[in-house]
């Protein structure tokens, strides 16, 4: 579009195609809460981990790693709320070491709300929400020490992680904790798969929150995201077919560069999508 930067008609259209279904399905979920979400094995393990912690009498740990305030943190809060409610219900110790002070404040509020919703606000200990360090490896060292000292029964690693992911996961593994991890960083997924009992990959982190809470806004978002992915899949298939036609079949039939399809590709690339 003339005048705008980083925005073309195509990009704005795409944003509409992504956000539109989300808003529609949020409304639908508010009317009908029984929208189907497939079972996520790692999410079911959360109940198992909490049960294990109750049996052994050792604490649970929930960490969001290096996640800062943003969409990923909001996804983690849904799971944290569920875990904290479990901890409140069964009077388990929940430790939440954090890397970011602002995130720590948000986490504290969420855990407090969870305890309040179970009517166990008196059992909430603000000191269980700890700021370790905003330095990546200082945080990892603090977490590892905490895990070793407390001999935790279960660990939940949900959020953004970097190189320290394996250090955190191995620390829990060494004390025999049951670990459930979820991250959107593909490069850290491999480490979690090696060291954790269950791993949620990519946007399963966002789905976990909806699956656990059955909350209309989250369910509707999940449905809307899936429909948005359908849009992308259709676009990919169309793009692949056109590119294949241009590369292999069109020159055979009409000579190089000829035909309607190359013009369509040109318009799509340079007029509709190019920023």
């Amino acid at each position, binding site marked *: 579009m003339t005048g705008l*930067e980083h925005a073309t008609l195509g990009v704005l259209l795409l944003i509409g195609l992504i956000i539109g279904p989300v808003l529609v399905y949020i409304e639908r979920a508010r009317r009908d809460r029984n929208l189907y979400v497939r079972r996520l094995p790692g999410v079911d393990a959360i109940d198992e981990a909490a049960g294990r912690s109750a049996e052994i009498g050792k604490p649970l740990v929930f960490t969001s790693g*290096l996640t800062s305030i943003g969409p990923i943190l909001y996804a983690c809060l849904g799971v944290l709320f569920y875990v904290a409610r479990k901890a409140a219900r069964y009077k388990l110790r929940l430790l939440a070491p954090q890397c970011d002070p602002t995130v720590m404040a948000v986490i504290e509020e969420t855990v407090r709300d969870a305890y309040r919703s179970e009517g166990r606000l008196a059992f909430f200990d603000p000191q269980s929400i700890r700021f370790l360090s905003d330095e*990546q490896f200082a945080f990892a060292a603090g977490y590892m020490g905490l895990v070793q000292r407390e001999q935790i029964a279960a660990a939940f690693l949900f959020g953004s992680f*970097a*190189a320290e992911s394996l250090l955190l996961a191995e620390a829990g593994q060494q004390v025999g904790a049951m670990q459930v991890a979820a991250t959107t*960083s*593909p*490069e*850290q997924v491999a480490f979690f798969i090696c060291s954790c009992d269950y791993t949620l990959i990519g946007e399963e982190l966002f789905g976990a929150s909806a699956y656990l809470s059955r909350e209309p806004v989250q369910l509707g978002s999940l449905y809307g995201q899936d429909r948005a992915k359908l849009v992308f899949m259709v676009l990919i298939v169309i793009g692949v077919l056109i590119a294949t036609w241009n590369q292999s079949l069109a020159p055979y039939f009409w000579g190089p560069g000829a035909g309607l399809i190359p013009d369509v590709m040109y318009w799509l690339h340079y007029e509709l999508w190019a*920023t």
Partner: protein
Amino acid sequence: MKQWDLTHIDRRVIYLLVLLALSIPLALEYALKPARMEAAERAFAVVQDLEAKPGELAFMSLDFGPNSLAENKPQAEVVLEHLLRKRIPVALYSQYYLAEPFLESIPKTVVGRLEKEILGHFWEYGRDWVNLGYRPGGSVMLQNIAKSADLAELFKTDARGNNLRELPIFKGVAGLESVKLLAEFTSLVGGLDSFLQFFQKKGYRPFFIHGCTSITIPQAFIYLDSGQLKGLLEGIAGAAWYSLLLERAYPQRRPDAAQIINTGLGVAHMVVIALVLLGNVGFLIRGRN
């Protein structure tokens, strides 16, 4: 008997084997010919074909800390060396505060090596390279660079306090279109994405070479495949292959540490592979019994 159980080798034995595998080649300074890295070859070709007219320069962003020094430092050194050999002016910059010391130490090391190798030739600060220092702001700073019509006005001074307008390297430099090449070396998550998204303007994007740690190679390959990255140095292996290409292009060049570190890493890889195979042999034997 437990000590013959291949599925339960003591962790400490594994750590000792890895320690020996890494340290012996490094101590002996033994270098094997690295494996061919096509992505690093593409990066080499980009720099080899690069020409910078007066008022044009290359931009190098060192966004790594002491943690990933072993992988990112050799990458930065080989690319910087190549640019300096070609007399392409380089502006060094960082978005990560822990990288600040490297913005001086790395170019000084490379320049020292070059001046020893090519007697009578000098690389001068302010003409051939400049240290713009650590600039906070992350992607906001990158957006400002992309939107700026006068980079000297945006940065104002270098890390040493020199007014950039006084330096020959910035004579005639305008906005982003004066930056012919961007080379970014990082271990930070999100660093590459910020540059891809924001270090461009309408109708212009400089050539982008990226140096990453081994963990983020699959992610970087996405952008190499789409053409947004023109070259990629894959960890220390990429730096070692680039170093070899430099030796071939400039025969008088002495080998550097990249190939030695790569050899040590290769031996450690073999140890890990051997342990995995041993573990599986033990697993299969146990299953059969």
